[in-house]
Structures are given as C-alpha cells and as structure tokens.
C-alpha cells in the first residue's frame, strides 16, 4: 500500500515502485534544495571560495571582499539582465556597449549642460531604455534574430559614442552625498547591483510577467495562442536590461572616476552571458534563473579575483579562466540533465 505522500507520476508507469520510505520535513526540504537548478553552481561557488581561502588568506580579507564586490556588481547586473532575455528566447550583445556608452550621456548632461547628476543619470537610463526599445522593435517587428539586431546596434552605439566623445577619455569626479550614493562609497555599487538583481528576480519569478517571459521563450506560438503578448514581453525585457546596464555603468564610472570610449564593452557582455548560462539559464529559452545568474557572476568573480590574488599572471590567467568556466558549465549541465532525466519535466525552480 502506497503512502499517501507518495504519488507515482505518469512517466514512471510500468516501473515497480520501491517500498515507501519515510522522509521527514527536513529531508524533503534538503531534497528540494538539491533538486534546484542553482544547486550545482552554488556548490561550485562554495568550493571555489574554500579553495581560494585556503590558498590565500588574503582572499577572505575585508579589503579583498570590497574589491571582489566591485568586480562582481556590473557582471551580476548584466548577467541577470541576460537571464531575462535568454529566458524570453532572445539575447542582447549590446549590453556591454550600453554599459560603457550611456554614462557618456549622463556625463555630458552633467558636465556641459548643468543637469544635476540625479537628473542626468535618469536621462541616461531612460535613453538606454529607448535604445532597448529599438532593439526590441527591430527584433519583433522585422523578425530579425536578436543576435544580429544587437550585433548591429552594438557597433552603431560604439560609433555614436566615439563621435559624441571625440574618442577622448573624460573624468567624472563627484563629491558629497550624491557622489557617495552614486559610486564613491565602497559599497554603493554592490548595493545598487543587489537592488537591480532583486528587481529582476521579482520580475522573472514573482509576478505574472515572469510567467509570460518563460512562456514566450519556452513556446512562442503556444504562448501567443494562450493570449500572452509575446512581442511586448520581449520588448520590455530589452528595455529593462538596457536601462539597468546603463545605470550600473554610471555607478561604475563614478567609482573609477573615468569614462573611456575606447573601452571594450564586449568583454563585460561575455562575462554577463557566461554568468547567466553557467548559472543554469538555457540558451534556447524558456528556462531561466536570476538566482543562478547571480551565482554565476559570483563564480566568475571568485575565479577572477582568486586567480589574481594567488599571483597568477596574465598569460596563464586567460587559459585558466577559460578552462574553469568550461568545467563549471559542464558540471552544471550534467547535474541538470540528471535531475531532468530522473524527475521528468517538473523540477522545482
């Protein structure tokens, strides 16, 4: 006689069920934790932390923690923004360039046109959202793959930034409380990043719009026929992603006091996509996790900072970072496949 708590799913019909086992609430909670998509990447992050902490006690020093969070912040925001887009079935290659370029708009409004830094930042962020709107419209209205759309807009934005800035670095030094809030204070950037990630978590996992994003990416036609406004969903994702990338770009520029149009935004974009993917978000859409994206960013930050702090030089650094990303991704994929094959389609998320 089966325990009332034990229900055999359709996929297991024909399989002789094992004798019922008694699992307490604590055990069930633990099992649900391990079943989560993010469990693997969380484990990888913990192992990396332990490894680097043992290798170099400086890794767990306060000073290094501050440095680590400053490196983590933009990758976490861009990574989680890519989670939204990837889940909806799209990708945005221009987010790194948005991160570099739109702070220039903020700077020019503030330095040359007398805007307050708050207003200038708001205008920059809104401008980025409009840029995201353009990406979304081109992708949805003209059925251009987002890879191509955002590749084109990446170059166009890069060129526009160079023209606007005349290719010259600018210095942005803020003072006072405003400056502290917008990046001078050591913890400002990670707090802003945390707020942005929290917003994206709520959007994807806690409101109906998140269901629409997942449905759109998982089955576009089915979602549309079910009444989901799939075009609008994608456009909103592009806009939100660009706005948050621009915001964290302003914060980062204030922190380091410089804006450089020659900076390569594609690197931070690749870090962001790596964070999203190794955190468990599917490249084919329909499945995404903001927590996973944040954990993926943490893994990358641990690797980057840990390799630096343990004295790895630049040539070896690239090799090791690449291998480490592959290993983390393989571990994540294997674990998820194991969960999918054993538990069927329904996995806790």
């Amino acid at each position, binding site marked *: 006689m089966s325990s009332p708590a034990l229900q055999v799913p359709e996929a*297991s019909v024909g399989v002789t069920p094992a004798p019922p086992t008694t699992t307490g609430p604590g055990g069930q909670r633990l099992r649900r934790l391990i079943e989560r998509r993010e469990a693997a990447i969380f484990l990888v992050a913990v192992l990396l932390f332990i490894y680097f902490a043992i290798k170099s006690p400086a890794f767990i020093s306060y000073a290094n923690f*501050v440095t680590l969070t400053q490196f983590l912040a933009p990758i976490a925001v861009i990574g989680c923004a890519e989670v939204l887009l990837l889940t909806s079935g799209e990708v945005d290659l221009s987010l790194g360039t948005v991160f570099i370029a739109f702070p220039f708009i903020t700077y020019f409004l503030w330095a040359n046109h007398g805007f307050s830094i708050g207003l200038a930042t708001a205008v920059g962020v809104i401008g980025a959202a409009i840029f995201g709107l353009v990406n979304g419209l081109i992708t949805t209205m003209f059925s251009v793959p987002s890879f191509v759309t955002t590749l084109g807009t990446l170059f166009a934005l890069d060129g526009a930034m160079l023209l606007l800035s005349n290719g010259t670095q600018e*210095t942005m030094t803020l003072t006072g409380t405003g400056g502290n809030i917008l990046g001078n204070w050591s913890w400002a950037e990670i707090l802003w990043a945390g707020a942005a990630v929290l917003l994206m978590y709520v959007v994807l996992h806690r409101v109906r719009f998140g269901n629409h994003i997942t449905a759109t990416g998982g089955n576009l036609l089915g979602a549309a026929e079910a009444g989901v406004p799939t075009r609008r969903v994608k456009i909103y994702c592009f806009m939100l992603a660009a706005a948050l990338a621009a915001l964290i770009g302003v914060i980062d520029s204030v922190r380091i006091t410089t804006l450089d149009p020659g900076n390569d935004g594609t690197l931070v974009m690749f870090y962001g996509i790596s964070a999203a993917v190794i955190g468990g978000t599917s490249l084919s859409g329909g499945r995404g996790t903001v927590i996973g994206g944040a954990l993926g960013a943490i893994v990358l930050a641990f690797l980057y900072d840990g390799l630096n702090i343990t004295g790895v030089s*630049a040539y*070896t650094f690239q090799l090791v970072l690449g291998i480490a990303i592959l290993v983390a991704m393989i*571990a994540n994929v294997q674990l998820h496949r194991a969960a999918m094959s054993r*538990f069927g389609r329904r996995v806790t998320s």
Partner: protein
Amino acid sequence: MPNSEPVEVDPRSWEGSRRRFLRNAGVAALGIPMLGGLVETLSEVPADASTRDRARLTKTNDILAQGSVFASHPTYTFNFVNHVTTNPFFVPTQYGAADACALFGCKYQWTGSSTSVVAEMVTAMNTATAAGVNGISVPVIDPTAFIKPTNSALDAGIPVLAYNANPPASTASQNHQLCYIGQDLFQAGVEAGNRILPLVSKGDLVAGLIATPGSLNIQPRIDGASSVLKPAGIDFVEQGTGALLSQESTAVEAYYLGHKDVKFMYAVDDGTGEAVATTITKHGLAGKVFGSGWDIAVPELKAVQSGALAFSIDQQAYLQGFLPVMYLFLFTITGGLMRPSDTDTGLYFITKDNVGPYLAAPSRVEGSTTAQTVLPKPTTAIIKADAGLS
C-alpha cells in the same frame, strides 16, 4: 505562478540522482584543486622562459634567497599592473622584470587588462593591495582613476611606482606614485616634431595617428609634436586609428586614400607605425610621403631599414620592467633608505643609419628571443652617437 511543489517519485530514482550529484560534486571538489595545481605549475616561472632558463632562474632564486649577495630576505612579490597585458611591446618589459627578480630573489606578477579597461586595472591594483604584495607598478593611463587605489596601497604600506605612462601635470599632485620610470612622453613628441620639420614645408598636411586618443601613455606624444609643428605653420591634424592592428591598418590606409596630399604620417604607437609602413610600401610612397613609427617591433625596424619609415623611437621597454623591480627591492630591503627616483628610460631615434644592430641578432632586451645572450660590445660610433657626438 507555477506550482512549485515537487513531484514525489520512486526513491530509487532519487537515490540514483543523488549518487550522480555526489559524483559530480566530487569531480568538482577534486577538479578545483587540480586546476589550482595546474595554475601553480604554470605560474612558478615566467611562461616565456626556456626550460634551461627555468632551472637557472629557480636555482638563482634559491641562492640569492640564501643571501649570497644581499642579506637573507623573504621572497618579495612585486605586482605589475598593465593596461595591455598581451601587447608584444611589453614582452621585453616582462623579461626585464623576470631577470631583475632572478637577480634579487623576488617574484613578480603580470596582471591588469588586455584591452586598456581602466576598471580592470583598478580591480587588479586593489586585489594586489588586498594580497599584501611588496610593491606595485602601474602605468597611469588615466588622470584620476589610480588616485584612490594608489592611496589605498600606500595606506596598506605598499609602495607604488608609475611606469610607461605618468600622470599629467593637472593631477600630478594627487597621484602619489613614488616615481615614474619611462619615457618623457611629451618631450619625446617634441623631439619627434623637430625631426619631422626638416622633411615638410609650411602649410603641408601632417597626420598625427594615434590608436586611442586621450590615453595618457600616447596622447602626450601627439601633444608634444603639435607644440612644435603648429607654430611652424604645419597643418597638423590628429586621427584615431583603433587599438587593434587590423583596425589600424585599415584606418591608416583609408586616411591616406582620403588625404593624398598628406606629407607625413606620424604614428605614436607601434601598431599604428606598422600600419603606416604598410600603407607607404603598398602604395609606393617612399620618398614622396614620409612616415614614422614608435618602439622597436621587428616590422617597424625593417620598415626603417627599407626606408618606408623615416625613424622609429626606442624607449627601452626592458628597463621599464627591470628598474621597477630593482627600485622596489632596494626600497624594501633598505627600509626605505634607497628611494625610487624618476628615471627617463630614454628617447633614442632609430634611423636607417643605426637600425643595423637592432636587426643583426635577436636579443632578450628587445623581446625577440627568450635566450640570454651576449651581443658584440658597442662600437665607437654607437658610443659617440649616444654621447651626442656624430
């Protein structure tokens, strides 16, 4: 909201998945330390040293650590933050750092950004500070970005030197690096301008070609030349070419095709210099349109030898790695009595007349070989030329 309740399944299935999970976790737990071991093995000596050199360097470190020259001391670690970590210009710089470390029984780390991303350099500096290294060297390619990280390092008792690029006058008083080791960039531009003047006439178009306008390691070279050429009535214009060699080649050629009246193409970095040489050669412009390069990449030296370039400039990149290590080591081991001092690593014009020794044999100080070699002693002509006697 999706139903987040898990589906209860056959515990045997769960057991299998748990086994796989634990297996994979074990793989990760083993893999990370193994990866770390790989990192350690690859990081023990400079990646570019030959096997024989590795053994020699390690042995030398052991001997010096035992105090054969200086008193016994810990193995100090010095961090080089760089803006273009993979740029071949800095290969001799790394050799210089490696050789100095071998002499003084120290270690160095080469880190920073491969694409001049200031935020990455700032992160690298802060990480080095947190790691408690014994000294940091950094090219100050931004007027303000390195003020805070330098102060943080100083507060942590870590001396900081500037190399290859020094802060501009506008923020020099806020940038507290102990000294600058490198070329006087503005003066180098002035001298280059003086070399260009005899080759052009009043009203001629001279293009100042720069990879990344505004970057403090190269912009002063443009500014220095401009300060000479414009007052002389030369139509001097600045043109950006991009940071990648492929970009620079296209940009320079496109500029020439759109400005066929240009009389001199003045490049202030080695990539652009190569691009200028390629354009002059490709279009058969030698003798009609002049060009110049910067630094001693082999293609540029060959272009000087062939006449495609009127001159290039040697700033002795090897010394920009050797001297910071030496200064930081002496500063550390003497308790601060031997203070680092500003050092101009030189401004040497390489022309068709004196390019020979650069191309005669590969040398470690040029970065053209990893081997330690002894080259023929300088000729009287070289010595007198270096002394300012023709």
